[in-house]
């Protein structure tokens, strides 16, 4: 899962990890697909059974290993297949964003959105928007940092 890019500037294409909940957002993504909506190809989607399945360490690890952004998608509050999973996601999301910001990781790199099964268009827009924002920020960290810059020289 090494990522990171050494080509900032115009050529930079971010790598973004998307966690989508099985019941709403993944279906929304599917709908966007079958509706042939245009989307940037920067996202890799991992389906999770509920957005609450996304533990904070998933996000932190992804960013530390050099991915440029993480997007967590869940059902709208009130619509959770498991009644209340996304309420926990919401609390965690709030805290994690603030923590990441506190250590200097731009809040755009970790985002949470609610996308329902019928919101194919919202899925496409969200992906588009997040990709744009992260592209504008530039790379999260270079490959050399993920692999260790100066081995044997500390």
């Amino acid at each position, binding site marked *: *899962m*090494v990522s990171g890019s050494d080509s900032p500037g115009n050529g930079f294409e971010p790598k973004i990890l998307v966690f989508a909940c099985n019941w709403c957002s993944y279906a929304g993504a599917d709908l966007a697909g079958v509706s042939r909506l245009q989307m940037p190809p920067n996202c890799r989607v991992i389906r999770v059974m509920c957005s609450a399945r996304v533990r904070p360490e998933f996000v932190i690890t992804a960013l530390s290993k050099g991915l440029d952004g993480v997007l967590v998608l869940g059902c709208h509050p009130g619509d959770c297949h498991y009644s209340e999973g996304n309420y926990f996601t919401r609390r965690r999301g709030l805290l994690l964003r603030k923590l990441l910001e506190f250590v200097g990781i731009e809040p755009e790199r970790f985002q949470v959105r609610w996308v329902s099964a019928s919101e194919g268009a919202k899925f496409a827009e969200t992906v588009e928007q997040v990709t744009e924002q992260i592209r504008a920020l530039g790379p999260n960290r270079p490959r050399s940092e*993920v*692999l*260790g810059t100066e*081995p*044997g*020289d*500390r």
Partner: protein
Amino acid sequence: MDRKKISKSDLGQWLDKIAEEYELIGPTEEDEVVQFRPVRSSSELSLEYANSLVPPKSLFFPPVEGLFSFQKRGEEIRLEQIKPLEKDRVVVGIRKCDVESLLLLDKVFCEDLVDASYKERRDRTALIGLACPTPPRSTCFCTSFGIDPLSPEGSDILLTDVGKDYLVDVATKKGEELVALADDLFSKLTEKQAKELQPPPVHMPEMDLSELREKLEALWEDDYWEKLSLPCLGCGICTYVCPTCHCFDIADVGSTSDGVRYRCWDSCMYKDFALMTSGVNPRPTKRERVRNRYFHKFSTFPSRYGTGYACVGCARCLVHCPGGVEITTVLEDILAKEGGSGG
């Protein structure tokens, strides 16, 4: 052996000369932590220090060290070795206990199967020792291991603070070369002059450790280890700040197609250190791990490598142990046991 002196105000000039040709490394202080680090100028050094937190073994056996990188190209995997050093190095300000620890680590890394990167770092690094101040820190107990903190042995040059000057003992050819970089800054001393400047031997509370090993070995089954393990939190501080500990881990960072294999410090105090995949752990509780550490220092290392005790009395572990386990107390406890009655 040549004895010279250099005035404190000139020392920087000499070191800067050295820094032009070598990588100069010495104690630096940042955020109240003293560490050995490469410096560009002598002004970054803090030579008025007691001792560094992380011992200078880190310069030879680094906390993290790339062994080689690997990259997949089609069907092939290319391995590329990582060079340990760009330039020859000079370490200034190393204390005698830490020099002594390097002599012990040499046994591990330079004998039997030679660890090439350690050896290269040793071979390409000159040591400018710094004699310990009087009085030494109250925790120091190197003399119990027969170490003279004012001795140049093991260093290429030894500096001794004698007020406005440093007394300079040039012990090796490499040392002479370094002095020659700025010969005019040094004044040669006659035997007599040097003797007058030489500070008296350092006194610190001394323990008689001659029976330690025998007494320790009798304690293998003793309840003492259980008791000792109670305050131990199971962190790795004692081993990471220890100048003679040499346990390490080997781990890959990256993916299967692009990454680096690292060697990094590890600690026998960690519970998963010797844990096997099968779930068997030869040292399952803190009791066995604490015991293992003391046995390693005072019984098995000496027996394996034919050395004295693998402790140099720097007391870093004593000062930094968050659970307050103090090696001097442990040694006293062991010595206080009736010989051979453990079990």
